[in-house]
């Protein structure tokens, strides 16, 4: 044994001596490289240790930006039109008494005597504020009553009441959809939904406004991704968020086709009926009643009580399994004070009124259709929106694509209308924050308390105002 080891060593030594010089040099370099790699200090970019002196210098030379940049003093928000009366049928703006064509008072309940009476009763019984969130003695019996009545009205198991319409949908979406989930959204949704999408941190896929084919394409893409990774697909939640009646467009979502896709691809559907509650459907139950679809097929319906119901707050309704979750996870529900009882009282009265008698909804629909046909005939004006929708977007027929110019022209129309006694408003958006900024328009809102004469005169006035502005520019 020893002999063979000795022999091998000798062989190695011999081959070392007899190897060509360049071979030895190369091997020598390689050995040096290996030694260097083993022993040199590794590069750690995070642990840049600064000395105290260096830190002080950096701190001294750091100049932060101002807290906010300057705002132009002629910004419309800094020169608001001040209202000094009830925002009912007529409204006093900057001293002018005008016919109200701009607030979301669809059913005219702002001036309803019964609503005012119930507000006063609520005030006399409960005071003003509820002084606490729902979890800590802020739940008043009137909230429970309102929730059960809303659930009954919408034909669902349970409703969760929020104290602000904006936070109903923007708290509901992040309560269910988390990191890793996918949400398919119509790109024309309102800002509250967009906020909810950002807060949810999920993957957002926008499809073209009311374009079912585009949604189908996105769903097929998602199905492909799911096929590649079935394990992940099983735990990825998928949601579809649409509005019943779009506030930015005045049109209605194609619910039956969306439902087909929803069932085929197992996507949960949330509908925001902010503008559809009290408007669509024979009894005002929203877009679900309008299309005659089973409400069980929809996972959750959110709506606000601030428009047709002339109160405050919002709600989300659906099956208890889905909706009850928000009582612990809806940020706007758990961490916010509850709805002041007097506002809940008004909502209850409005709800009772439309439950007992849906004639006001019928009247609203007739008014919307009349107004639509009156406006359609105006040559310089293009009307956007469904005939039965109370929201009508008015734009100049020959629209330039200059956002600023169009806005200026429309603001002039609004000014002329106000001088003549009609309250209109340009639809206002946060230009830099919207996902898809709609083109400038006047958002005209038809309500149930207008009569035919007033609508005719309004249409004439709009025609004249648009004409005079066209002549100016």
């Amino acid at each position: 044994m020893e002999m063979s080891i000795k022999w091998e060593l000798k062989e190695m030594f011999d081959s070392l001596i007899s190897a060509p010089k360049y071979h030895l040099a190369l091997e020598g370099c390689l050995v040096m490289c290996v030694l260097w790699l083993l022993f040199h200090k590794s590069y750690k970019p995070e642990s840049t240790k600064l000395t105290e002196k260096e830190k002080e210098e950096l701190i001294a030379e750091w100049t932060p930006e101002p807290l906010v940049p300057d705002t132009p003093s002629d910004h419309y928000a800094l020169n608001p039109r001040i209202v000094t009366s009830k925002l009912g049928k007529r409204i006093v703006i900057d001293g002018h008494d005008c016919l109200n064509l701009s607030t979301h008072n669809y059913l005219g309940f702002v001036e309803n005597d019964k609503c005012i009476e119930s507000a006063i009763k609520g005030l006399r019984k409960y005071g003003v504020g509820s002084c606490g969130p729902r979890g800590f003695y802020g739940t008043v019996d009137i909230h429970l009553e309102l929730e059960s009545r809303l659930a009954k009205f919408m034909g669902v198991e349970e409703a969760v009441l929020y104290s602000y319409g904006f936070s109903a949908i923007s708290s509901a979406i992040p309560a269910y959809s988390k990191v890793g989930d996918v949400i398919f959204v119509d790109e024309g949704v309102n800002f509250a939904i967009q906020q909810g999408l950002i807060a949810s941190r999920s993957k957002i896929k926008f499809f073209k406004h009311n374009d079912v084919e585009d949604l189908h394409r996105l769903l097929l893409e998602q199905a492909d991704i799911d096929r590649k990774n079935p394990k992940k697909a099983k735990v990825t939640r998928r949601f579809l968020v649409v509005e019943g009646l779009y506030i930015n467009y005045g049109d209605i979502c194609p619910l039956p086709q969306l439902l087909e896709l929803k069932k085929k691809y197992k996507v949960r559907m949330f509908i925001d009926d902010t503008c559809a509650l009290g408007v669509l459907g024979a009894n005002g139950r929203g877009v679900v009643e309008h299309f005659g679809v089973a409400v069980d097929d929809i996972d959750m319906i959110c709506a606000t009580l601030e428009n047709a119901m002339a109160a405050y707050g919002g709600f989300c309704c659906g099956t208890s399994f889905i909706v009850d979750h928000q009582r612990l996870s809806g940020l706007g529900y758990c961490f916010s004070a509850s709805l002041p009882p007097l506002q809940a009282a008004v909502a209850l009265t409005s709800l009772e009124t439309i439950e007992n008698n849906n004639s006001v909804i019928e009247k609203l629909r007739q008014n919307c259709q009349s107004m639509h046909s009156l406006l359609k005939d105006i040559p310089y004006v293009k009307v956007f929106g469904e005939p039965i929708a109370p929201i009508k977007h008015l734009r100049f027929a020959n629209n330039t694509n200059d956002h600023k110019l169009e806005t200026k022209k429309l603001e002039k129309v609004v000014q002329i209308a106000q001088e003549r006694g009609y309250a209109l408003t340009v639809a206002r958006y946060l230009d830099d924050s919207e996902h898809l900024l709609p083109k400038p328009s006047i958002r005209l809102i038809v309500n149930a308390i207008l009569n035919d004469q007033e609508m005719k005169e309004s249409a004439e006035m709009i025609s004249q105002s648009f004409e005079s502005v066209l002549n100016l520019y």
Partner: protein
Amino acid sequence: MKNTEQVYNNRRNKSKSIANNGIHKSGDNQRKQWATRNDGLRPHPSWHIVLTCYLTFAILIAFGYINEFLTYIGLKRNKAISETNREGYACLYGTWQSFFTRYIYRRVCDAFSQPICSVPAGNVHVLDRKSDDYNLTFRLTGNKTNAINLGSYNYLGFAQNTGSGTDRVLQTVHKYGIGIASTHHELGKLDIHIELEELFARYLGVESVVTFGMGFATNSTNIATFAGKGCLILGDEYNHASLKSGSYISGATYRSFRHNNMNDLETKIRDSIALGDTKSGQKWKKIVIIVEGVYSMEGSIANLPELIRLKKKYKCYLYVDEAHSIGAIGPNGRGITDFYGCDPNDIDLLMGTFTKSFGASGGYIAGPRHVIDRIRAYTQSAYATNMSAPIAQQIISVVKVLIGETDGTDGIERINRLSENTKYFRKRLKEMGFIVLGHPESPVIPILLYFPAMISPFVRLGLNRGIATVGAGYPATTLTTNRIRFCMSSAHNQQMLERALNIISQIGDEFNIKYLKT
């Protein structure tokens, strides 16, 4: 240190001149001394308490798993987890979240969300409920319990349904109605909002104020107007959910510092400025420090003088959320700046809500005119309905009382009564041997229970015997620092406080939670 008696006498002498709307510089060195004291720190629980707490949760979780197993094999039916008409859909809830709700929270949820049927004043009528299916659903029995209200945020006692303020609100209901159905940027701005904003700016001593319809939304929609990508927000670790939500939505980077720990904050500021944003390699555009005036679960008060010193030294911006401190602390009830005698213009943005001390709803942001103008123009609340007119009137009435313009000395009397009640209640609880958290002058008074199992029995027993209290446990607090919280109100008189203290002492003896009793 001046004794308490002297402080009260000084305050009473000052109150006589308040009638002329004079603002008093409290300038209390005493307060500044208190600010440097160890408030917010609590004695650490001993090992056997910690062990028992974890054991409690372990037992609950074990039972939960047994229940799950029984449901899985079909021996038990659980309505709460069955969903019909949704076969093939991905599971809606994450496993731990729904497990916690079903098997831990559900057991104790009768101690939360109790409905009331009266004004949430000093006394409140709580409706009795019963559950026939282990807390899944409740039905009202038709009876009610009259209890001393230690749970509602009614610091100055303005939750009332009579009085001159209520009459004015009534008139406003007739004049403006309830609903507005329009936003800030369209036709939602009423003359009463302008009046409220100007009055409130005068009350706070700042240049400009903007008001919003909801307190939560005030934070979540407005932080984005002054902070965005490339900015750093340093928030206290116990900041409210609305602040964290607003910070996330703004796109800024959010980092937290240890609760009320100014040394930790200073270290983090220094490191952040020196190193910048390590992800992008750029310097931070600006650094905003976000704190609360009074923390609602801890009862502690932010160390404002130190925060102002830090912010000035390092050129940062300071945003203070005064939801629980406006109206509730300070000799003139003007919040944390009044409490410490600091200049409100030293703080870049003062935010608050009208729900607590003003008995209304909504929120506001106050500060220099050019900043508030920016917020007015770019607030995301521009899409939300503006505040209702009667609510605005309620706030106007309350502010006028507080500054002495109406109802004479009623305002200052309420503020003094709240302060006296707070001090008395804390003193008595400490004497009884409870671990009382928070600043000595904070009207939010939590006592430590440690054990989660004690929260709901305490609340239930308390209600049976006549006090309405609030229990707080995981996840609002850590696993081992479960607590009961009392909120003081100037609507409480001496007899009510005595009665409440007796009941709390009784329950404390029964539960053995007077940890500091010698």
